[in-house]
């Protein structure tokens, strides 16, 4: 704010304008190098943080995954891809993959459609709908840990609602039974996250021009037909993103499981992240745990690339063809 640098700069900037006689190439080069310095200075903090604390750890994990290493000193015992073959032949890790698959399917078949239905309900002119919306979204702001501890106690057989619920559902101690624990976990995940997906769908729904649904109604379409043939296709991009977030979130699931069950009983609710954490931080098998991290990373990456190429691509194509038709 002191006047001198300001006037100094003003002269600098003004030079090319006031003196067109200066060779363009020369001033251009000077501008560009000055610009590059500015750009570098602006980018530096974010780039340093990101390279040091996001990229480096992932590279270190990739490197460590090929060693037998306890995390102290430098990794020296090179084992090639042994850690990866070990993971894929470990029944616990195989189970992790299987359970991730189950949780993804449950989310896609139950949680997301329910959220979508609810979003459609709350899109109607209904008194008090903003209160409902506020309420449904509220669990999203609670941490997974808080949610997990709360539900541990809610389902606790002696002092919680466990007894009442077991009478209702016909099962006892849902978190202690290997047959039910995964479904109980899914219920708690849905409790916390359905509001989030609902909010996404509501936002997507509100971006659909009223004229479109109104026109369909005027043409005699039933409300189901309007939903099926107008709203649902136009919600496509939102739905695909919500599916994407749900899948990626399931691949990385940790906090909730760690607190709720610790992965038990007998690994029945264990996830990849929990297995990784057990080996890395409890048994100091950093090499093996890194291999699991890298597998999680590759799964997310391959899924994301595939999804963006194959599934989300339709969104842009759709937009272009629609414009072409009009």
């Amino acid at each position, binding site marked *: 704010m002191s006047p001198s640098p300001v006037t100094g700069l003003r002269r600098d900037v003004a030079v090319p304008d006031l003196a067109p006689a200066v060779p363009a190439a020369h001033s251009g080069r000077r501008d560009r190098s000055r610009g590059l310095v*500015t*750009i570098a200075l602006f980018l530096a*903090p974010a780039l340093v943080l990101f390279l040091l604390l*996001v990229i480096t750890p992932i590279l*270190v994990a990739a490197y460590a995954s090929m060693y037998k290493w306890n995390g102290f000193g430098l990794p020296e015992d090179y084992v090639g891809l042994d850690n990866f073959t070990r993971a894929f032949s470990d029944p616990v890790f195989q189970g992790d993959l299987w359970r991730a698959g189950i949780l993804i399917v449950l989310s896609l078949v139950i949680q997301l459609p329910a959220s979508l239905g609810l979003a459609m309900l709350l899109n109607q002119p209904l008194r008090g709908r903003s209160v409902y919306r506020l309420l449904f979204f509220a669990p999203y702001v609670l941490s997974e840990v808080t949610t997990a501890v709360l539900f541990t106690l809610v389902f606790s057989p002696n*002092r919680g609602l466990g007894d009442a619920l077991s009478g209702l559902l016909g099962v006892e101690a849902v978190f202690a039974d290997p047959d039910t624990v995964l479904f109980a976990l899914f219920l708690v995940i849905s409790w916390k996250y359905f509001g989030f997906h609902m909010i996404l769908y509501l936002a997507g729904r509100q971006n659909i021009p009223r004229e479109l649904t109104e026109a369909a109604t005027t043409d005699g379409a039933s409300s189901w037909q309007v939903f099926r043939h107008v709203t649902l296709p136009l919600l496509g991009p939102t739905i695909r993103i919500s599916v994407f977030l749900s899948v990626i979130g399931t691949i990385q699931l*940790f906090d909730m499981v760690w607190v709720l069950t610790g992965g038990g009983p007998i690994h029945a609710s264990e996830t990849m992240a929990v297995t990784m954490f057990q080996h890395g931080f409890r048994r100091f098998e950093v090499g093996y745990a890194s291999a699991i991290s890298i597998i999680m*990373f590759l799964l997310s990456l391959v899924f994301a690339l595939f999804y963006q190429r194959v599934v989300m691509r339709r969104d842009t194509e759709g937009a272009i063809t629609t414009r072409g038709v009009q």
Partner: protein
Amino acid sequence: MTAPKPVQRTRHLGLHLVSVAIGGLIVVPVLFGVLGGFKDNGQLSTNPLGLPEPWVFENYVGIVGSGVFWRQLGNSTLIALATAVVVVGAAALASFVFARFAFRGRELLFTLFAVGLMFPFAVAILPLFILLRSMGLLDNPLGVVLPQAAFGLPVTIIILRQFFRTIPAEVEEAATLDGCTAFGFFWRILLPMARPALATVSVLAIVASWNNFMLPLVVFTDQSWWTLPVGVQAFQGQYADDTARVLAYVVLSMVPALGFYAIAERQLVGGLAGSVKG
């Protein structure tokens, strides 16, 4: 045009019934916790559902009166605010460049950050821990703040760049003619204009930090730095037999989050919906 009223009314009634039922599924566990905190363990086992009889205030009073809860609340707040300042500051500078400068490699760099959206904490936590250990940042709040900020960069940069792009070039030209440096324009004109977007990304950063568990769990072995999620989990382990007291702790730890949600609901919801669109 004029829909028959009774039909509409029954339809609305149905909608309300569904909404109230789902609202009940959300409220009942929380209410169980709130009321459970006012019971003793005997009441919890004989009367888990009903109102406390008599009301026991000991659980809540004990926690509110002990320093531990406040300490954890303070740590969570400090770490969340510091994370927000670092991530929003660094991301705003970078987004400014991504939005308003043309240079070779810009899209490549931006893509690098955007791809970071897919790097979950879980993938990096182990090497991150080793890295922090070698930098001497264990049991140091910076050991949580800096990685959280780094992992928050992608979403923050994506939202801010989008917003910075909407500010017309004329504004910048006028500022430059008036003698503004690039940083002067950024600091005195762009940031004030971007206040709503800055609020949104700050809220997202605060909520993410507030709820983070894995990182503080491994970084802080010193209890005095524990954040609320770590503290809640430890409290549950410590008082495993004292359900009523754990319930009171859980409920108290929810209050700040829900209070913040009540204040910042618009930024949070708008930010989530907006970031997904971007």
